[in-house]
């Protein structure tokens, strides 16, 4: 019978099927960061349990790390203790570990693929919902809670119920200036933030195949914002090329064997999906969120929607709450909304391609006078290094952006980078929830190019207008 990619990945990892239909699923790679692991390590110690397979773990601090003055100790004592606790656990359990000032340190979902520590065909987990990122390489990757982190540490497995299959197809290519971020925001706008609940979403079609691996990671990263724990994309030549020569990737004869197996990591012709969504690529424009949920999104040329036109009382009241929080009036053109801060970074959009796209817009321009802060936070030390080799740091600095050290930063503001109450931010991150980027801060999710366009004009601007001027 024809199988979906998800079916194949699932079947390859079933250790046993329980009487109730749940399965014990084997986990190949376990990524660990400082926020969701201390209680799991403590749980192991209290129960006197060992790690089942130490080699499966790669650990890195990312959420709490400062993006400036990294030669000094972390100023916030609570953050410092959490990072030090990870240092201690990594040392006690002898883990593969990239400490804060290692050039390989970065956001866990950036360094996993970068190191080849996450590979096609793997099951990958992390105590972090954006683990879905790694599905971009044809892996089954999903976020878990701390109890499950401990469970994987102790047993290398999870008790799981298989999800249903959904396929989202982007038919045809997207237009110039439209990026992976716009594609995934458009998808979430279409299916809603709970549209993928209970499903694994396979992203397919020309619009997805056209994307680089970085772009595919952006799409899968936000599968969780559409409710799906896992998003996946079939393996193709781009996937294989991406992993060749990466530090943790197989070598020599092992590489040949792995590639042969990876080539089968796609849905069979005729595989049946429980739900299919088709979106025309040419219909997708650069997107901007206007509310407090990623599904509250419109094309940049549009206006802030009117709750009175929602046609549903519960929905209208939710929209009004969001508008009140965001300090917006229905009917305002998106391009007339001025921003205070710009954040380019996060596990969604901090890879080299993202920085290149933002730099292309920033080049030769200046950050607008009304922008209090425009910051670029590379996803890893290696992304930062590469960007500097390409001169992107100079482009950003000359335009008036700050160029920071790698970490999660203002995506969730666990470190010192945050919005002040009422501040409005054009952000390349993944969540526009209330207070996500700082108490009473207002987040608009956009692509890196759109964030850079907002930085240099001071308000949301269709980046295609800026790039068209150059052409």
């Amino acid at each position, binding site marked *: 019978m024809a199988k979906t990619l998800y079916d194949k990945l699932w079947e390859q990892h079933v250790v046993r099927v329980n009487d109730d239909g749940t399965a014990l699923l*084997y986990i190949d790679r376990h990524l660990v960061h400082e926020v969701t692991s201390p*209680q799991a390590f403590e749980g192991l110690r209290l129960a006197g349990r060992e790690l089942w397979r130490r080699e499966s773990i790669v650990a890195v601090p990312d959420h709490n790390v400062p993006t400036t003055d990294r030669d000094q100790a972390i100023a916030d004592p609570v953050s410092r203790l959490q990072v030090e606790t990870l240092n201690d656990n990594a040392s006690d359990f002898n883990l593969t570990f990239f400490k804060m000032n290692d050039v390989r340190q970065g956001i866990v979902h950036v360094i996993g693929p970068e190191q080849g520590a996450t*590979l096609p065909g793997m099951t990958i987990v992390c105590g972090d919902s954006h683990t879905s990122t790694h599905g971009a390489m044809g892996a089954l990757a999903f976020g878990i809670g701390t109890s499950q982190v401990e469970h994987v540490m102790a047993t290398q497995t999870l008790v799981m119920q298989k999800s249903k299959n959904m396929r989202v197809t982007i038919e045809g290519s997207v237009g110039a200036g439209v990026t992976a971020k716009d594609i995934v925001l458009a998808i979430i706008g279409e299916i809603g933030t709970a549209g993928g609940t209970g499903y694994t979403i396979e992203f397919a079609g020309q619009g997805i195949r056209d994307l680089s691996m970085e772009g595919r990671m952006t799409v899968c990263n936000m599968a969780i914002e559409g*409710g799906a724990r896992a998003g996946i994309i079939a393996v193709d030549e781009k996937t294989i090329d991406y992993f060749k020569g990466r530090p943790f990737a197989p070598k020599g004869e092992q590489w040949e064997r792995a590639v042969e197996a990876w080539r089968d990591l796609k849905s069979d012709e005729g595989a049946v999906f429980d739900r299919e969504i088709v979106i025309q690529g040419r219909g997708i424009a650069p997107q901007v969120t206007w509310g407090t949920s990623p599904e509250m999104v419109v094309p940049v040329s549009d206006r802030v929607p009117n709750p009175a036109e929602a046609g549903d009382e519960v929905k209208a009241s939710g929209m009004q709450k969001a508008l009140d929080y965001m300090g917006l009036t229905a009917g305002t053109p998106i391009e007339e909304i001025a921003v205070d801060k710009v954040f380019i970074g996060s596990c969604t959009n901090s890879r080299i391609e993202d920085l290149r796209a933002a730099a292309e817009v920033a080049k030769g321009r200046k950050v607008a006078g009304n922008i209090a802060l425009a910051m670029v936070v590379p996803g890893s030390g290696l992304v930062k290094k590469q960007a500097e080799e390409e001169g992107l740091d100079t482009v950003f600095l000359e335009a008036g952006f700050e160029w920071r050290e790698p970490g999660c930063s203002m995506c969730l503001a666990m470190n010192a980078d945050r919005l002040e109450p009422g501040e409005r931010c054009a952000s390349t991150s993944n969540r526009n929830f*209330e207070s996500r980027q700082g108490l009473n801060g207002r987040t608009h999710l956009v692509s890196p190019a759109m964030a850079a366009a907002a930085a240099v004009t001071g308000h949301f601007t269709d980046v295609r207008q800026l790039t068209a001027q150059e052409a």
Partner: protein
Amino acid sequence: MQAFTQLSGIVAPLDRPNVDTDAIIPKQYLKSIKRTGFGPNLFDDWRYLDAGEPGQDHSQRALNPEFVLNQSRYQDTQILLGRDNFGCGSSREHAVWAFMDYGIRVIIAPSFADIFFNNSFNNGLLPIVLDEATVDGLFDEVEAQPGYQLTVDLEAKCITTPSGREIAFDVDEYRRYRLLNGLDDIGLTLQHADAIKAYEAQRQKTAPWLFS
């Protein structure tokens, strides 16, 4: 894990969809390396009028009188009534720990986000899915009757309203069994250690690069 069998308690209505885990427990409290002590910061941004930081004396902070859990009729809430996509967002189990620490043991909603739903069962918090019309009805009843209580019986998979009406709910059998008995998932899985080892031995032959 704390077992859950039966509970009768005050119900509070949280009438908004997409309640996310950032709202349930804001990021600054995730810096704790413990599983306990999150109760005073449950819904911190909505519950207090000032900005919350770890280490504050929360009993001295100004409460937001508008927030449902601060209203006198909802003191000692043990059951929360919610809307669609409850618990969406991050995987932070701290959200579930915050409910448990506060004293809420049951959440009833038309739908839950997957990771939150799963985390709940791993900590003795019972998430119950009921259809939208039933949830709408419960919202009406709770708002109409101060002191409104529900009895939730996990053994019988049944909720009883003050008027004696019974509402059946569904729960996965394995999860129910674990919750009723307060059983540790890891201990149960390790009973299959031989099967895990056998899988690894087989997989090492077919995909050796995963083990190098």
